[in-house]
């Protein structure tokens, strides 16, 4: 593959950023859910 460093870097950065952001959002949701009463956890 030509320019493999650039191609794989672009895909790698994208995968890593999306995975990190998704894990951050899910983790924050788990932490906050425990602190909010059950009846007020969901809005949609």
């Amino acid at each position, binding site marked *: *593959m*030509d*320019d*493999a460093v*650039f*191609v794989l*870097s*672009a*895909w790698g*950065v*994208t995968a890593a*950023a*999306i995975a990190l*952001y*998704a894990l951050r*959002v*899910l983790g*924050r*949701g*788990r932490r*906050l*859910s*425990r*602190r*909010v009463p*059950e*009846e*007020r*956890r*969901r*809005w*949609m």
Partner: protein
Amino acid sequence: VTTTLAPPSSRAATANHTGSPVTRVLGLTVAVGLVLLVPLGLWWSPADQTQGDAVRIMYVHVPSAVTAYLAFGVTALGSAMYLWRKSPFWDLLAGASAEIGVVFTALTLVTGMLWGRPTWGTYWEWDPRLTTTALLLVLFLGYLAVRSTSGERRVRARRAAVAGLAAFVDVPLVHYSVEWWRSLHQGPTITRLDPTIDGLMLFTLMTGIVVFTGLYAWLLVHRFRVQHLEEELAERGLAEAITERRREAEVDA
């Protein structure tokens, strides 16, 4: 408030997370799509005649850009609706979408730079498309900064709504910059009525756009719920502080 709380007895309301049956199905579908996109983009689709394999960056760069446009479009819609209806739902939706848009705009810039080096010979040029995209990132970082300021919730939401609408003005500038000004960036390829792109390349690109759109929807639901939880906690903290202050005042009296 135009939305309703889920009944306390529902299964979703008792879980210690922001997931639900719908987000689980959507998340699984997106995961399958992402797994399919990797061999499509990296091996099965052909190399470009002039760019070679560097064209494979397009399958993450363009979907990231489209997702960022979509996210900021939802922010603008949420902002306009908040100013009209004054419902916290629209404010939360606008904020959740803007944060996701910032992530995908940053990815658009980084993948674009990695694409620019092998094709243009440089990571960065102060080209109209690149400059307006960088400006878009700065504008929505500013929007998120407005949202994070302290103060009365309704005032903050109104300021954020105005900032969100103002920042969105840059989106059409980004999109049409390659047509309105002389640009190093290539012009539109798939929005033309007669796309000149190879069939399998177009299929891979469209798959990427559909999968990233699904990913955006999944992230949006989770981020919205997290933001709702943050608001609930902030209101609870305020109520507890007021109660504590009243108790102190009674003791003093």
